[in-house]
């Protein structure tokens, strides 16, 4: 019989490195293009420069576009989270039949390309009293629906929500306190991941924004495309900044989630205050913190 503790394998590292290389190379090349003065038929660019970034930051349209993109994405993310988390949760727990029906309905935005949604929306609302920015909000909501719904639902399944609710109810806890003290903390990683995905999707949305409001509300992505038709180097420097923003947001969310995690592990594991032990508590099977929180909830 094989030993239970398997020795360290090399193949996972090979696979992960290969896929990460595939992820990172086009990004890296775009970055290099942004910093190069000119780049012809050579492996490396002729001369490096920050000229394109200077041009960019002197452009008031660029700064306005960044601000608009931020306002739009954060506003929509808040609306989506506020509406979607309770709805998916309720459907999943209390309306299983409806949940099944909704599962196929949320796939519908995938079946409708953005262009068509836009045409349909324009036909319906362009002559109405509803401002196009609101229509854009609705269109963005619809476009984020599948990812948001599926990922919240997947995490609900992954943390055994139904079983946890039943277990909590059997122990006499109010459903609300089970949700707040047990389910939500466990959903955190799933929600953070899907928020990241949705925020970045919103931040980089092009088709809907451009066709519904277009030049009247120039977001970063629309600006990027306008610049791309003029100058490849300038466009790639916009792409670089766009990615730095996304990266910072991603790291920020990640940092906050870690902070939250260590906070909850302090409050639940008061005995494990020293650093070394706290590290251990993170590595423990997630079921142990669950049961601690459950006890506190009751």
């Amino acid at each position, binding site marked *: 019989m094989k030993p239970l503790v398997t020795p360290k394998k090399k193949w996972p590292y090979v696979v992960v490195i290969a896929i990460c290389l595939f992820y990172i190379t086009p990004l890296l090349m775009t970055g290099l293009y942004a910093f190069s003065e000119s780049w012809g038929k050579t492996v490396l660019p002729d001369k490096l420069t920050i000229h394109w970034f200077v041009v960019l930051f002197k452009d008031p349209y660029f700064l306005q576009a960044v601000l608009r993109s931020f306002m739009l994405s954060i506003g929509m993310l808040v609306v989506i989270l506020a509406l979607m988390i309770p709805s998916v949760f309720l459907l999943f727990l209390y309306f299983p039949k409806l949940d099944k029906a909704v599962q196929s309905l949320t796939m519908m935005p995938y079946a409708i390309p953005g262009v068509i949604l836009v045409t349909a929306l324009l036909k319906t609302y362009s002559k109405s009293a509803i401002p196009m920015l609101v229509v854009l909000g609705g269109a963005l909501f619809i476009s984020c629906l599948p990812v948001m719904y599926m990922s919240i639902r997947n995490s609900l399944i992954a943390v055994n929500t139904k079983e946890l609710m039943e277990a909590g109810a059997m122990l006499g806890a109010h459903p609300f306190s089970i949700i707040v003290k047990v389910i939500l903390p466990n959903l955190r990683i799933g929600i953070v991941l899907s928020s990241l995905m949705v925020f970045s999707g919103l931040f980089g949305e092009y088709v809907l924004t451009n066709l519904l409001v277009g030049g009247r509300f120039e977001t970063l992505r629309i600006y990027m495309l306008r610049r791309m038709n003029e100058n490849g180097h300038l466009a790639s420097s916009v792409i670089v900044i766009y990615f730095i923003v996304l990266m910072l947001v*991603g790291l920020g969310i990640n940092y906050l989630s870690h902070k939250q995690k260590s906070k909850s592990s302090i409050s639940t594991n008061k005995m494990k205050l020293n650093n070394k032990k706290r590290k251990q508590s993170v590595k423990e099977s997630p079921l142990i913190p669950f049961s601690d929180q459950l006890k506190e909830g009751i």
Partner: protein
Amino acid sequence: MKKKIVIGWLLVPVTLVVSLFLVIPLVYMLLSSFKQDGTQAWTINNYLQAVSNPYYYQAFFNSGWIALVSSLVGILLASLFCQALLQLPDKLQEKLTLFSNLAANFAGVPLAFGFIILFGNAGIFKLIFPEWLQFDLYSWKGLVLTYVYFQIPLATLFLYPVLKKVQKNWQESAELLGASNFYYIRKVVFPYVLPAMSGTFAILFANGMGTYETAYALVGSNINLITTRIGALVAGDVYAKPNVGSALAVLFALSMILVIALSQKFMTQMRRVTE
């Protein structure tokens, strides 16, 4: 029962948004697909054109083929990626999934631009490896390669949480009971992840079919794809035929719904077999 009705009221906001911005416009589109462009008279001419004009039905086949290949490659590489990730230390896993999710946003025009620098006619990759000179980025193979870039992180987002739940102690128990590694994967892991796999596949396929921006930036109208075709018909400059576009969109939507319905039927059947 009374409690359920109270809870039901909480679903009203989402229902309202979905009907205002999805259902009603869709009905509008369906109606306009039965109207002649220009005269607005009722007709089925738009649908007849969609199935008889090779220009239109080939767009379906091209899109379907590219979506199929890119989803298969994507889901395969993503499963491999997730499996590999799960062997790594927890902290590294978290960092890499974050990275993967960030990479998922490198789609559309920036992605096309990045790939043109790499694999375009004077691409760097081609200069370093001359044997790749044959590779044409502006062909269906180039589109597949580019699509795979955003299919892997998308599949990872859905598969990783499910694969993470395949616990090590299951394998240990299976081994203790005398199961071989292959038998364990076939009888324990495979049935467990299959519903998630087929659901993910449906999403990837639909995502591949529906991609507009990346395809448009990369090949324009050189490759006849359903999304760029509809786009040209609906928002085209000279020969805009929005109602033919609507008819194509309805057919497109129906075929996607069929794919998703089939995958769900397959899922429930598999569950019945395994239970």
